[in-house]
């Protein structure tokens, strides 16, 4: 077999890993996360799935870009209580609407599915227990 072809899977794996979050593991980064003020709420956004690693659309909250859907990465935003729309766009835009109460922490998982040309990333509101468990496997996606 051509040596270049033999290297192809290794190069592919390296590219895949390079596309993943490289920040500190959640357990380590969590120590530096400031406590939530009672007047605000917090939204954690994270992506556990590495599949479609090259697809990393920006994540918007009420049309403001707050981060990107980095595989294996998490980040959070603190916002005033209110109504929010979390959206991601690749070929199409997918939106999650949620209500944030004072002192409340919400967990939004960024899922990936098949698209026509590229994968679709869509935000899903998950239970706190599920979010806490899954986010522990991620790394900081804040650059």
């Amino acid at each position: 077999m051509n040596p270049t072809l033999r290297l192809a899977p290794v190069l592919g794996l390296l590219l895949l890993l390079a596309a993943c979050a490289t920040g500190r593991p959640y357990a380590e980064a969590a120590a530096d996360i400031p406590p939530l003020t009672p007047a605000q709420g917090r939204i954690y956004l994270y992506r556990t799935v590495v599949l479609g690693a090259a697809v990393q659309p920006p994540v918007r909250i009420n049309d403001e870009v707050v981060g990107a859907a980095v595989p294996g990465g998490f980040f959070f935003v603190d916002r005033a209580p209110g109504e929010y729309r979390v959206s991601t766009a690749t070929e199409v835009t997918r939106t999650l609407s949620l209500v944030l109460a004072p002192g409340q922490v919400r967990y939004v998982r960024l899922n990936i599915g098949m698209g026509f040309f590229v994968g679709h990333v869509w935000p899903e509101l998950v239970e706190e227990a599920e979010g806490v468990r899954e986010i522990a496997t991620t790394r900081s996606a804040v650059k």
Partner: protein
Amino acid sequence: MWARLVLLAMLPLVLAGCPFDVSFLKTEPAVFVAQPDCGKPFILGRAETIGMGTGFTTRLRQGTRWQCIGQVHAGLVYRTADQVVTVEASNIHEAQAVVNQGRLVGFYLPVERAWAPVNPPVELMTEAPK
């Protein structure tokens, strides 16, 4: 041949950012009137899986506690802190249950200020909190 390839390559650019409305959730505008303790709180005695005709379902878990927080024209609006409630179509919406005479008649979508009817309404098996 090349022209076709160029057109195909341009399609993602054209589609980029388009709302993904393959699956529609039928909603109607609703005026929500906040009214704490408007109806009796209840515990859901039996899990319910609610289809909204979108290809997705919403599962309400057995044992969840529900509190009335207000009303819309179709009924009383109940919220639970025991589970995440969303209705899903192409987009996902956080939702609250709309109950009328013991039946789940729809979901109120607080961000959209709209309600999505459940057809047919679902008889809820409820228990009074102890």
